[in-house]
C-alpha cells in the first residue's frame, strides 16, 4: 500500500513539472515576418484592426506617473479599441533591469530601448517600424534607432539640452540677457552670489545621474558640428582646449571653474534632488544643468511656474549659438511577441505618439515633425536646434566601442564627471591635467581598436 502511494506521488510530481514547463510555449511563437505586421505609417488609427483582441504590455521607467498619467492613456485608448487592453509596468532601475529582461524574449510588447542595445542588435530584439526614408519624412529623430535603412524604434519626442534657470533671481541679480560664453556665465553666477541669497549653480552631485546631464552639451552645443559625435572617434585629443572656448573642453571648463570658484552649493556630497526642484521654483537656486524634461518638473514643483526658464548652454561657435536636441527613450516592439500583439502594439504606439496628449504632458519636442513645439523654448530663439547625426555606414557601433574601451563614460558613466567636481573641490588636479588623462584614455582605445586618427 505504501509503495502504491509513493509511486502515485512521484507520478503526480513529475506531471506537475511537465505542466509547468509547457505553459510558456504559447508566447514564444514569435518571429513573425514583416509582411504580416504593417509599417507604422500605414496604420490608420481608429479604423484599422478593430477586430484584434490582445493585451499589450508596456514596460516603462516612469515609476512616478505610471499609475496616473500613463493609465490615463491606456484607458483613453481602450475606449477607442475596446478589444485591446494596454497594461503598463514600471521598472525601477530601468536601464539595468531592462537589459536583462530583453534577453529572455518574454518581457512584454512595448518598451523603451535601453542604451545597452547597440544598433546592430536592434533587429534581434525589435520589429521594424518602417524604412528610414518613410519614417524620416514624418517623424523627428528617426535616425536614432535605425539600422541598415530600417527604423526599429521611434523616440518618444526629444529635448533640447540647456540649463534650467530662475528668471526672477537672474533679473534680481542685475542680469538682463542670457550669457553666451562660459566666462560670461561664470560672471553672471558671481553676480547672483553677490546680489542675492540664491545658490548660483546647484550641481545635484549626490544623485549621481545628474552629473551625466553635462554630457549632452559636448557635441552639437559645443561645436555646432552635427557630425562631431561620429567624428570624435577619429580625433586626436578631442578633449583638449581649442583656445576659443568651444568644444568639450569649454563645457568642463564651465563646471570646473564654477566649482573651484565656490559658485555651487556648500556640500556637494549632501545634495537633495527632490528638494532642488521646488527650491529652484522658489528662487533658492538660480541655475541647474539638466535636460529639457526637467522644466516641466520644476514648474510643477511649487507655486511659481512662470519663473522657470530654460537657456541654451553658453557657448558660441563663430558667432552662432547651437543646442543639441536629443531624442528621448525610443519605443520599440518585441520581436518575439505574437503577431496579434505586435499589430495591437503598433496601433497603440501610433495613437500614443500622434493623437494622445503625451507631448503636452511631457512638454518636449513632439515625435511628429509637424507637431506643436513647447513654449518654454523662447530663450532658444535664434539658436540652432540640431540633432547629432547618425553614424555613417560601417561605423554604427564605433563610438560605443571606443567609448566603452576607453571607459570615457560618455553618456553612460556619471562618475567620470563627478571626478571633475571632486578634483575642482580639493584642487588635486587642474582641468588641463584631467583633460590630458581623458585624451590619453581615448588614444589608448583608438589604438586598441585600430581606429584611424585623422583630425
Amino acid at each position, binding site marked *: 500500500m505504501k509503495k502504491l502511494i509513493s509511486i502515485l506521488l512521484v507520478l503526480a510530481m513529475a506531471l506537475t513539472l511537465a505542466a509547468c514547463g509547457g505553459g510558456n510555449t504559447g508566447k514564444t511563437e514569435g518571429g513573425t515576418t514583416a509582411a504580416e505586421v504593417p509599417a507604422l505609417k500605414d496604420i490608420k488609427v481608429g479604423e484599422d484592426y478593430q477586430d484584434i483582441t490582445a493585451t499589450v504590455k508596456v514596460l516603462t521607467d516612469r515609476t512616478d506617473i505610471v499609475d496616473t498619467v500613463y493609465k490615463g492613456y491606456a484607458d483613453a485608448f481602450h475606449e477607442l479599441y475596446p478589444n485591446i487592453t494596454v497594461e503598463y509596468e514600471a521598472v525601477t532601475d530601468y536601464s539595468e533591469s531592462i537589459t536583462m529582461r530583453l534577453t529572455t524574449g518574454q518581457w512584454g510588447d512595448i518598451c523603451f530601448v535601453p542604451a545597452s542595445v547597440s544598433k546592430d542588435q536592434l533587429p534581434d530584439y525589435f520589429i521594424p517600424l518602417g524604412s528610414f526614408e518613410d519614417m524620416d519624412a514624418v517623424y523627428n529623430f528617426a535616425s536614432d534607432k535605425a539600422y541598415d535603412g530600417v527604423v526599429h524604434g521611434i523616440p518618444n519626442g526629444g529635448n533640447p539640452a540647456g540649463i534650467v534657470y530662475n528668471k526672477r533671481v537672474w533679473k534680481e541679480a542685475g542680469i538682463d540677457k542670457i550669457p553666451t560664453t562660459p566666462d560670461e556665465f561664470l560672471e553672471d553666477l558671481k553676480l547672483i552670489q553677490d546680489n542675492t541669497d540664491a545658490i548660483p549653480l546647484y550641481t545635484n552631485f549626490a544623485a549621481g545621474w545628474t552629473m551625466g546631464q553635462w554630457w549632452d552639451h559636448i557635441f552639437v552645443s559645443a561645436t555646432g558640428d552635427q557630425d562631431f559625435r561620429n567624428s570624435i572617434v577619429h580625433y586626436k585629443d578631442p578633449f583638449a582646449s581649442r583656445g576659443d572656448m568651444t568644444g568639450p573642453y569649454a563645457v568642463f571648463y564651465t563646471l570646473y571653474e564654477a566649482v573651484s570658484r565656490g559658485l555651487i552649493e556648500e556640500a556637494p556630497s549632501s545634495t537633495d534632488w527632490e528638494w532642488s526642484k521646488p527650491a529652484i521654483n522658489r528662487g533658492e537656486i538660480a541655475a541647474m544643468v539638466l535636460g529639457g524634461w526637467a522644466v516641466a518638473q520644476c514648474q510643477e514643483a511649487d507655486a511659481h511656474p512662470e519663473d522657470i526658464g530654460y537657456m541654451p548652454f553658453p557657448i558660441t561657435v563663430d558667432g552662432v549659438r547651437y543646442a543639441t536636441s536629443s531624442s528621448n527613450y525610443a519605443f520599440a516592439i518585441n520581436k518575439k511577441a505574437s503577431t496579434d500583439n505586435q499589430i495591437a502594439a503598433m496601433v497603440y504606439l501610433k495613437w500614443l505618439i500622434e493623437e494622445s496628449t503625451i507631448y503636452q504632458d511631457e512638454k518636449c519636442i513632439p515625435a511628429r515633425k509637424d507637431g506643436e513645439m513647447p513654449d518654454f523654448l523662447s530663450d532658444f530663439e535664434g539658436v540652432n536646434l540640431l540633432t547629432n547625426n547618425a553614424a555613417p555606414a560601417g561605423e554604427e557601433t564605433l563610438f560605443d566601442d571606443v567609448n*566603452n574601451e576607453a571607459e570615457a563614460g560618455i553618456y553612460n558613466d556619471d562618475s567620470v564627471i563627478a571626478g571633475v567636481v571632486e578634483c575642482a573641490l580639493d584642487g588635486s588636479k587642474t582641468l588641463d591635467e584631467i583633460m590630458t588623462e581623458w585624451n590619453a584614455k581615448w588614444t589608448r582605445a583608438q589604438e586598441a581598436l585600430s581606429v584611424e586618427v585623422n583630425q
Partner: protein
Amino acid sequence: MKQAQAPTLQDKRTFREFINDGRTQRVLVIILFMLLPMALLITFTYLPFVNMVQFSFTNCTYTNPGKFVGLKNYIDVFSRDDIFGTLIVSVYYMAGSLVQLALSLFFATMMVFGAKGSSIFKACMFFPYLICGIAVGFIFKFFYYRDGVLDTILHLVGVQNCPLWLENKSINNIALTATSVWRYTGQNMVMFLGAMMSVDTSLYEAADLDGANKGQQFRYIIMPSIRTIIVLNMILSISGSLSAFEPPYVITNGAFGTGTFFVVMNRIAHENNKVGLASAMAVFLLALIILVTIFQKVFFKYFFKGSEEDTNRPCKDQLRAEKLIAKKAQKGA
C-alpha cells in the same frame, strides 16, 4: 568456530534484498535528499562561476560575446590604479572589523559577568543586524549629510564647525566603516555570548579564589575556550571587508575616494559594459579572499599554539595500540 556473518562472494543477493538492505537504503536516502540542493547549487552557483571564469578571458559585454583576449583583463586589474588602488580602502574596513571584534568581545564579557537589563541590551544591540544593508546605507546617508542628524546633534552640544563627513578625504572612509561596525557588532556579540555560555562557571569561582581579576579571567579562561569562534569571526569579517559594497555604494556612490573594489567592479560591469574585465576582477577578489583566509588560519594556529591542548584527539601511542588490537582481532576471527 563461528559461522561467517558477512555475505561471501558465493552468496548472490537478489535485487529486492539489495534494495531492502539497511545500508543501501541509507545511501539512497542520502543521495536522493542531496539531489535537489546539489542541482540548485550547481545551476545557480557553480555553473555561473565557470561561465564567469570563461568571460574573464574575453572582452565580452552584456550583449556581445566578444573574443578571447587571454590574460589582458588580469593584467589590467593589477596595473590600473583605479582598480588595484581601491584595495587600500578595504584596509579601513579591515581595521573596522578589528574594532568590531574588540567591541563585541567587550560587550559579551560584560553580559557574561552579569549586567542589569542584559536581555534588553542584547536585543537593542542585535537589532541593527536585522536591517537590510541598503536601508542602513540610507539611514547613514542622512545621518552624515551636511546639517543632517550628526551635524544637528553636534550643534546642540556646542560643536560649531563640523567637517564634511562624506567629502573630507581623511575621515569619510572612517565614517563609512563606522556604519559597518554599527551593523555587525551586535551579531558578533551574540555569537560570542553563545560561545561563552558554554564555559563552566566553576572555573570563574576557582579563579576568583586564586585572586584573579576580571581582566585576567577574560584572558586566561574565556579567550582560550572560545578561540574557534573568534577565529571564525575574524575570517568572516576580513573577507567581508574586502568585498564591502553597500555602505560606499548607497551613501556616496564611491565618490571622494570611498569606492571599494566591489563598487568599481559594479561600475565597470554596468556603466562601461565591460563584463570581461569585471569578471576578471571578481575572480581576482575570490583568489584574494582565499589567500587572506589561508593566511589567517595559519596565523591563528601559531598565535594560539600552546594555549590549549586538543583533548579530543588521542595521542599517537594510543592510536598505534588501538591499531594492533584491531589487527589481532581480525587474525583471530
